[in-house]
């Protein structure tokens, strides 16, 4: 399998007055195409910071990261916007659906910025909603849907741009246990169909359902396991 994500000596600093926070402090890893990977670690360990950089929402202070051959640190704002649109599918903890739009229109949204014609857009959005089991809820507004249904809409939206990589930051964090299990099952299916997925989670139960777990602490990767087995890479402490 070819590497989809390659990170070398990734550093992200935040300056808060006199203090400097090392949100990422020299992180190295690779993720291959088709992987299903969880990033775990205590609060403040740098998980979201890493996800934002992988997703092209943020750029590293130093080090180098390429995703599908895109050098994130060297891209302009507009390049990053196109990259996010074409390469990344985001799933957020709080769903982030636009409340005035229907489920169908929410799924169409990334395709609008991709410049896809309305007819094609609508067909693909409908197919994706059917795929996540919401074929009968396409005209509903987010407030008319349950949390689990909203997250399914968000997952359908993440798939809309035919992304190389799906990033989910605490996708089950706002859901009850059973609904969380359903959502995780959906991710597993999507991975089985070929999608590369990276999930950030607090929940070790959730992490064990993925095929690989990267554990972070204080901006470092401290463990990297496959299915709960031996570490594949040495942790860089």
């Amino acid at each position, binding site marked *: 399998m070819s590497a989809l994500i390659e990170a070398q000596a990734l550093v992200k600093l935040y300056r808060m007055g006199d203090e400097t926070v090392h949100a990422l402090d020299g992180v190295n890893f690779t993720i291959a195409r088709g992987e299903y990977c969880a990033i775990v670690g205590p609060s403040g360990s740098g998980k979201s910071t890493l996800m934002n950089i992988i997703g092209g929402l943020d750029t590293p202070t130093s080090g180098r990261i390429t995703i599908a051959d895109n050098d994130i640190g060297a891209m302009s*704002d507009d390049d990053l916007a196109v990259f996010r649109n074409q390469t990344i599918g985001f799933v957020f903890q709080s769903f*982030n659906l636009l409340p005035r739009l229907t489920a169908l229109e929410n799924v169409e949204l990334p395709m*609008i*910025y991709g*410049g896809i014609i309305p007819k094609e857009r609508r067909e693909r959005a409908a197919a994706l909603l059917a795929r996540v089991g919401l074929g009968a809820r396409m005209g509903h507004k987010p407030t008319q849907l349950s949390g689990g249904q909203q997250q399914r809409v968000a997952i359908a*939206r993440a798939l809309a741009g035919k992304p190389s990589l799906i990033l989910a930051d605490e996708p089950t964090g706002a859901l009850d246990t059973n609904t969380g299990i359903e959502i995780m099952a959906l991710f597993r299916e999507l991975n089985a169909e070929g999608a590369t997925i990276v999930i950030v989670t607090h929940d070790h139960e959730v992490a064990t359902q993925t095929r690989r777990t990267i554990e972070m602490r204080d901006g470092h990767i401290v463990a990297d396991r496959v299915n709960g087995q031996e570490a594949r890479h040495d942790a860089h402490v």
Partner: protein
Amino acid sequence: MMRTSDLISSAGRALRSNPLRSALTALGVIIGVASVVAMVALGSGAQAQVERSIASLGSNLLIVVPGAQRSGGGVRAQAGGGMGWDTLTIDDAEAIAQLDGVAVVAPSQRARTQVIANGLNWNPQVEGVTPSYLEARDWEIASGRMFDETEERQARRIIVLGATVANELFPNLDPVGQMVRMNGGTFEVIGVLESKGQSGSGADQDDVVLAPLTTVKRRISGRRGRGDSVSQISVKAQSEDVLNTLQQDVETLLRQRHRTREGEDDFTVQNLSSITETAAQTTQVFTYLLGGISAVSLLVGGIGIMNIMLVSVTERTREIGLRKALGARQGDILRQFGLEAVTLSVAGGIIGLILGVAGAWLMTSLFTLPLVISPLNAGLAIAFSGLVGVLFGAYPAWRAAQLDPIEALRRE
């Protein structure tokens, strides 16, 4: 890159999601544009009115009247008071006619008397004139004819009626050929003048009877009209270019003839075109002033748009962050918010234009002014409101485009 149709529907959706707020925001521009349109139309109407009365006075015209100019700049138009009412003579008029640049000279004697005809009576201005008076005043005969020089010299009892007099005395029949009584004598109506409407000062220029100068002096004027004196000499210049020179030449000539020095004149030469030009300029300044004051309200409307757009950007921070995360470029966000602002202002501009035209129509009919609305002004009003949207929408839209998606998504 967003498609234009998606951009438009996106902006339209945002505006429709809060219709009351959108309407109130547009209201600022509506009031601004409506008042600019109405005020400029009102001012243009006043200006057109002044220009119309300039044209009706006759072009390239100097009017010489007896009496000195007052220190305030005004003129004792009618020779009242103690002295100076009979200082102008027919000989003066003949001398003026010899000057360079003169097209025609028309001495006239004014009188007021009752005119009785048809069992009706009327009290118009009676002007004793020579036939050249019509040319000097740019006046035309509507029906019948003007008397000629022979008839004038023979002091024939014939008259030409102004349109108002004709209507008042002969409401239902053709006045030409009819007889009227004036000052105890019988006169035949031989013609009717074309209507000139109101003068600049609002007087009815058609409330007049023209009679041969000699006739008026002999048969109508009282003591005042006796002898050689006239109450007015109309001097038409060959062109506008020579008008000012001619005015000086007339003044010099009359000073020589009357043996007066500058400053002690017993006559006044009025240059009507310069007076009316000043009036036209005044109304034009007035128009600009009204338009300018109203433009300030348009500015206030623009600030209202900016205010609401800034509020909207703050409220929709999370939405903007999400859109950017999903692939909206800075330009996409900039264009969406810019389009929202321009839509508000142009919609306001169109409604304002309609209300402004209605208001202008109401006011001009109230003040009996002509309604002047040029398509250029209307187009400018719309374009200007669009510009207001661009100017005042630019900063909020720029702020939205610059939002950091991570920060924006974190916002609650």
